[in-house]
């Protein structure tokens, strides 16, 4: 569909589409929206490396591809290593990599492929300083294999291998803070983003493009299938995750922290507002919710302190 000129001018998000209709994501999939925004930000001069994850399926089976860009499907734990190799090859061959007019090498992996099995390759990629962008789309479990917990699954969440039964629930650990592990590598640019705030996400993608060296973006992307949430609530859930400070949006740039959302001046909304729209938390008692709430506020205070001291 042609977008009229007067509408185009109102959009800060590029109007061009490089993510085709006919992809095979579930209804309400946050990851597919994320992929669409990445392609809008970087255009077709992009090389993706995608490991085993929902996006392998979303892109479509051979001989189809929903992406108007080159895509290398790779093994689960290798995203960081494969983008390192692609970047090295481009440099050996004299291509411009990253920057306004360079080729964008993008690792696009889920939370399991990043927080768990791919963490070593991610670390290697970060510490070696390759000019590429790694985007972890975080839907808080292994959704492609049918909803099993990952290191990024939050406290109390039901998954098929951490079910909540009549007496117990199995997920007793809080969400792994992958972004903190990334920042410990002291890379030039890292950020969190959300599909509910596409303009902020695209601004961050552009910043990652302009910043030499490795960049990392952790994108919050709800999964209605795994979260047992209505398919039309994904954006609302992603927004509530930010407004409750469950998943605050911030940037880390050369040692400096900057909080984007929620506002540090206002009290975050209660976590219950985020939880109650999802079936995966439905068996949690008031006490369980309080444990999660306390963790959220504690982490939020920590982040605010970091932004205050290193802002």
């Amino acid at each position, binding site marked *: 569909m042609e977008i009229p000129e007067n509408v185009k001018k109102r959009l800060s998000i590029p109007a061009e589409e490089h993510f085709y209709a006919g992809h095979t994501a579930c209804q309400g999939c946050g990851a597919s929206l994320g992929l669409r925004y990445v392609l809008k930000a970087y255009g077709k001069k992009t090389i993706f490396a995608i490991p085993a994850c929902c996006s392998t399926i979303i892109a479509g089976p051979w001989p189809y591809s929903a992406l108007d860009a*080159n895509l290398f499907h790779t093994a689960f734990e290798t995203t960081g290593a*494969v983008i390192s*190799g692609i*970047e090295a*090859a481009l440099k*050996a061959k004299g291509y411009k990599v990253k920057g306004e007019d360079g080729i964008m090498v993008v690792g696009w992996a889920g939370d399991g492929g990043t927080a768990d099995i791919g963490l070593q390759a991610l670390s290697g990629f970060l510490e070696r300083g390759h000019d590429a962008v790694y985007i972890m789309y975080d839907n808080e479990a292994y959704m492609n294999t049918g909803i099993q917990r990952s290191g990024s699954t939050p406290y109390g969440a039901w998954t098929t291998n951490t079910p909540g039964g009549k007496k117990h629930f199995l997920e007793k650990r809080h969400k792994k803070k992958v972004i903190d592990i990334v920042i410990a590598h002291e890379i030039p640019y890292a950020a969190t983003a959300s599909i509910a705030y596409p303009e902020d996400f695209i601004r961050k993608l552009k910043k990652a493009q302009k910043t030499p060296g490795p960049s990392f973006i952790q994108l919050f992307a709800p999964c209605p299938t795994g979260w047992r949430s209505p398919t039309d609530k994904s954006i609302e859930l992603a927004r509530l995750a930010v407004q409750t400070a469950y998943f605050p949006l911030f940037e880390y740039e050369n040692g400096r922290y900057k909080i984007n959302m929620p506002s540090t001046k206002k009290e975050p909304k209660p976590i219950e507002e985020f939880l109650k729209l999802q079936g995966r938390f439905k068996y949690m008692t008031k006490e369980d919710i309080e444990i999660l709430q306390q963790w959220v506020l504690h982490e939020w205070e920590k982040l605010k302190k970091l932004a205050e001291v290193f802002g």
Partner: protein
Amino acid sequence: MEYKPIRKVVSGNYAAAYAAKHARVEVVAAYPITPQTSIIEKIAEFIANGEVENLQYVAVESEHSAMAACIGASAAGARAFTATSAQGLALMHEMLHWASGARLPIVMVNVNRAMAPPWSVWDDQTDSLAQRDTGWMQFYAENNQEVYDGVLMSFKVAETVNLPAMVVESAFILSHTYDIVEMIPQELVDEFLPPRKPLYTLTDFDKPFSVGALGTPADYYEFRYKIEKAMEEAREVIRKVGKEFGEMFGRDYSQMIELYRTDDADFVFMGMGSLMGTVKQAVDVLREEGYKVGAAKVRWFRPFPKDELYELAKNVKGIAVLDRNFSFGQEGILFNEAKGVLYNTDAHPIMKNYIVGLGGRDFTVNDVKKIADNMKAIIEKGELDVEVDWYHLKR
């Protein structure tokens, strides 16, 4: 240009590093492991000293990532190289399938080292032979010269058939032992091995495509068949490239099995890699003592040289297969393969499997002589004593 070799005294590992340099590899991604390490150290030294241009060296955090990075680099059009050994090769295993499945002509040197436990750093072929079904071609070098030549030829073969190739050398026996290697002047290497022309690369943005997508039951099968077709094609390419190499540089590799004094031999010793140097030496000694013996060195294990083996087997009474490897629950791996090839043919010499030198156990000319006596007795009697002989076993 007339070929005047440059003679250097180098270890097998340095021969590999020089070959990678002369092949003008563009990306090396590697992780250190004994006894492979000096290959990548030497390559790093080439870069530090400004002896190579446009070579990106990625010091990865594991062998698994080394192969993954080579795969990314090769998919982006670069000539990619790595090296490993034993446990490192085992860690890479998953990615070996990825390289062949994506049809990427990566070349890797594997220094044969025994698998742990118990820990061992010494020679044993089980590490590389365990990778037999990954869709990688495998070349076994007898000496440092063959390591050097093997890397150059492997790139040419790999880039012709779009399959990855492994050049295999022995731990310490070759990797750390110095010998004269005739190296080829760069201009002539360039003539033999021009820059890679990939079928596809991730840098073509006009026609976007994806590699390695989901293959449904409707298509997966055909992808496998195409790998096998490429392997079959590789046999001819190997012979052709080996012949061309011989014509240009005087060392002919057109035979996938190198035959040594087999013409009138009653029986032959068959094996792979450095132990065949010892065997050839023993053949000379045995010939002087009146034994009609020869040696058959299997150079390429994948694709397997079926035709050459058949031609050999037709003309001998016995084959002593020397395996510096073992497949538990069965027998030596080369023995197993060779027997399998001959079953549906009319060539059925007596074949006996000698398991030798596992984990670096010394294998000498004297050992070959003892095996010769045993083989001779078996052939005279017309029946096997045992099929699989753990030759070195302390009893």
